């Protein structure tokens, strides 16, 4: 999309200076509304137990699941709670899944002194053949077996199972179903080409500087300095840039200063200070030209638990002077030009990746959409705020673009739902590793990756 429009004037700048070169006005922002209010926490109190979040999650998703179950297996099936189960009767139960895994890191094991165990090193995947699935509802739990893929599912998913209880107290599953895609949102997309740039994992502050030129090239393309006139006019159609997390690299996370003596660390600064200054400068360059939404990620200086609150503006003094900078939460939901975006910085997807046999980030992304919940593993293995009134991660409306950041590589897919939903699933790659960002065309929901490269000592191109 970019290139076809630009091609005719490609060689235009290989010429002597011409008259006043054209400047292109940026396509104006129309119809932006930030819908991520559920993810913004006001007063935060951590004195509550996490059981409430499961209770509200089940209560919130139960009606939808019951409807789905009826449509799947017929209207006449019996919907029972676990306490009402009778042996041998075919019925359908709605509950929360719990997967007991041997390898799951447990805080109790870590601090247990009797065992003298060394804490378990982080593994890429924690699944094992001996994992078991259990279904819990408000009062009881029961073990599941049968036609259900233990390896694939993760704790915290709400689902409906159809089967019967056996004599030994286990539930034999014949079929199961998830909440499926939520109801669709009306489509008010723009009629002309509008692009949104999605990038994540800028990884500033890392020791190696290879990605710095690529980052600079990215900024130059977006602000219109790079490229011939055709490309610049195309870049003027980029209405927004969304930075999906991990703006600082993992190297800035070093906590050595905590262990060392005070006199050794008195004059040292945390690595993140320099990185944030660099980020501020980059954001300033971007903000003078295009609205930017900045989402925090795993290594960014904000709270650890989901939903991550926006970065504070005092950290970005230069860039936050501009009204085009928006510091937003992770997960982030917004409506741009009539197109609803929903996305996270990738912590939820990578957490599911660790505890499930699904390997493909795009597959996991699609699965979370079908399961109706952004992050089912949230209180269990991923830090989460103890919600008690409602679970904001339940998907109530189907977004048009659903993305996750910091994926290993770029993937995208257009999903069509039964009720006419069209969702573009995008896994945004980690920029510091792949130097790739994504351009989403709002008009027809297509996505194109854009790669940047410089040249090194021994690079081929």
């Amino acid at each position, binding site marked *: 999309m970019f290139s076809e429009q*630009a091609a005719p004037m*490609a060689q235009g700048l290989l010429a002597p200076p011409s008259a006043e070169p054209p*400047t292109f006005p940026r396509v104006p922002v129309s119809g932006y509304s930030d819908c991520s209010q559920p993810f913004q926490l006001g007063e935060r109190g951590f004195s509550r137990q996490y059981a409430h979040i499961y209770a509200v999650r089940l209560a919130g998703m139960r009606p939808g699941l019951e409807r789905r179950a009826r449509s799947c297996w017929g209207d006449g099936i019996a919907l029972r709670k676990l306490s009402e189960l009778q042996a041998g009767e075919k019925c359908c139960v709605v509950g929360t899944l719990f997967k007991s895994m041997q390898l799951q890191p447990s805080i109790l094991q870590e601090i247990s002194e009797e065992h003298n165990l060394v804490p378990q090193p982080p593994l890429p995947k924690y699944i094992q053949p001996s994992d078991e699935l259990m279904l819990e509802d408000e009062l009881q739990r029961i073990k599941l077996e049968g036609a259900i893929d233990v390896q694939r599912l993760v704790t915290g998913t709400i689902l409906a199972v159809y089967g019967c209880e056996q004599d030994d107290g286990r539930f034999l599953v014949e079929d199961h179903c998830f909440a499926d895609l939520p109801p669709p949102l009306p489509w008010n997309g723009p009629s002309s080409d509008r692009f949104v740039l999605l990038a994540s994992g800028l990884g500033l502050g890392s020791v190696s500087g290879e990605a710095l*030129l690529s980052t600079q090239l990215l900024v130059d393309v977006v*602000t219109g*300095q790079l490229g011939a006139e055709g490309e610049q006019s195309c870049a003027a159609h980029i209405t927004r840039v969304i930075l999906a997390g991990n703006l600082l690299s993992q190297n800035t996370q070093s906590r050595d200063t905590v262990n060392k003596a005070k006199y050794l660390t008195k004059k040292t600064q945390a690595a993140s200070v320099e990185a944030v200054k660099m980020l501020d400068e980059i954001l300033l360059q971007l903000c003078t030209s295009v609205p930017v939404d900045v989402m925090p990620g795993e290594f960014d200086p904000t709270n650890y638990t989901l939903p991550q609150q926006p970065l504070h503006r005092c950290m970005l003094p230069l860039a936050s002077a501009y009204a085009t900078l928006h*510091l937003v939460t992770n997960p982030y939901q917004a409506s741009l030009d009539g197109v609803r975006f929903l996305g996270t910085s990738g912590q939820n997807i990578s957490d599911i990746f660790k505890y499930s046999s699904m390997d493909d980030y795009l597959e996991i992304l699609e699965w979370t959409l079908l399961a109706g919940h952004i992050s089912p593993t949230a209180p269990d293995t991923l830090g989460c705020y103890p919600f008690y009134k409602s679970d904001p991660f339940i998907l109530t409306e189907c977004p048009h673009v659903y993305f996750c950041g910091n994926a290993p590589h770029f993937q995208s897919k257009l999903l069509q739902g039964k009720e006419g939903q069209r969702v573009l699933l995008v896994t945004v790659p980690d920029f510091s590793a792949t130097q790739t960002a994504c351009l989403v065309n709002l008009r027809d929901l297509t996505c194109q990756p854009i790669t940047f490269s410089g040249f090194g000592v021994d690079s081929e191109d």
Partner: protein
Amino acid sequence: VTYKWLSYTLGVHVNQAKQMLYDYVERKRKENSGAQLHVTYLVAGNLLQNGHVCHKVAVVREDKLEAMKSKLSTIASVHVYSVQKALLKDSSPLYNTDYDIVKTNLQQCSKFSAIRCAAAVRRTPAEARPAPSPQSQRDPAAAGTLNGHGPPAAKAPPQQHKSIMGMFAAKAAAKAQDTPKEAKAEAKEAPGVSAASSKPPTKNNIMNNFFGKAAMNKLKANSVPEQPKEEKEVVKPSVAVAEPESSPSTVAEKPGKKAESARIQQKDKKSKTKRADRSDDEEERDPENVKKKRKRIKQLQSDSSDDEDVPPSPTLEEERAPSPPPAPAPKAELEPASTEVSAGGRKRKRKRVLKSKMFIDEEEGCMGKAG
């Protein structure tokens, strides 16, 4: 020499800089003067990769240019990226040159770009400043900034209190104030007073709170009478557009200026040279601060008296210095005042520290932002 470096140094549009580089290379090569020039190009286009079409943007050396062009299925743009005498081993010197030049011109980074964004206006400092913690100190500080920016502040929607940062807030406030002042290139001429300013997003409101509702109402009432006065004075300098001093005045009127800056580019140069005058003005105003400061401490407790106190002081300033526009005067002077006030009891020491900081920042602003 990269195109960006050339564009900033000569003050030309980036496309012209690229064409200039190309022209230079062509001419030098025709002359065969013997000096070896190495050129790097920027190539962008579509590339079929992993089964899907990927848009690639790459900086390549001249010898690899044709190879790269043949790899791309469609070429979107080709232009000269940089010219240098020695063969570059890798692209880090290019990056470093660009980084340095951008750093020295941070506030004007979009001036020579090919894309102008009408929405990229600076936030007014009234909205930009987060609240200091204690309630009593917040009000005089609020009064200070509001009255200093009558028109924009009156338009600012009520903001709720979110975070209590105290010290950070004061420092950030000082900084936020400084950066707008140093932003000369954003030629905020034609103070056709911020009529249509795009409004800050909701995020802004939640994060940048400033005062409690009670104080807000009082201040709003106050700022309204201040507003017509401000507007009148601001309109006066607008008549003499060539007068460089108008640039400081426009610094106070932030919203909506960026749109106009697109049209009025040449006046930037003048405003740069006159920056020295501005800082001198502020320096001479600071001794007056000392006097004002004492008054304010005494009346720290009573909100209303503070509010009344502050409007007379800008007018005093205005009478004293008719030619420099009054808008920056109350602002500049109330800034150190407000930052001091917000600090609380230990006025003197705090003020001294902050004041010197202001000077340093101002000087840096004069000589161009060092970073």
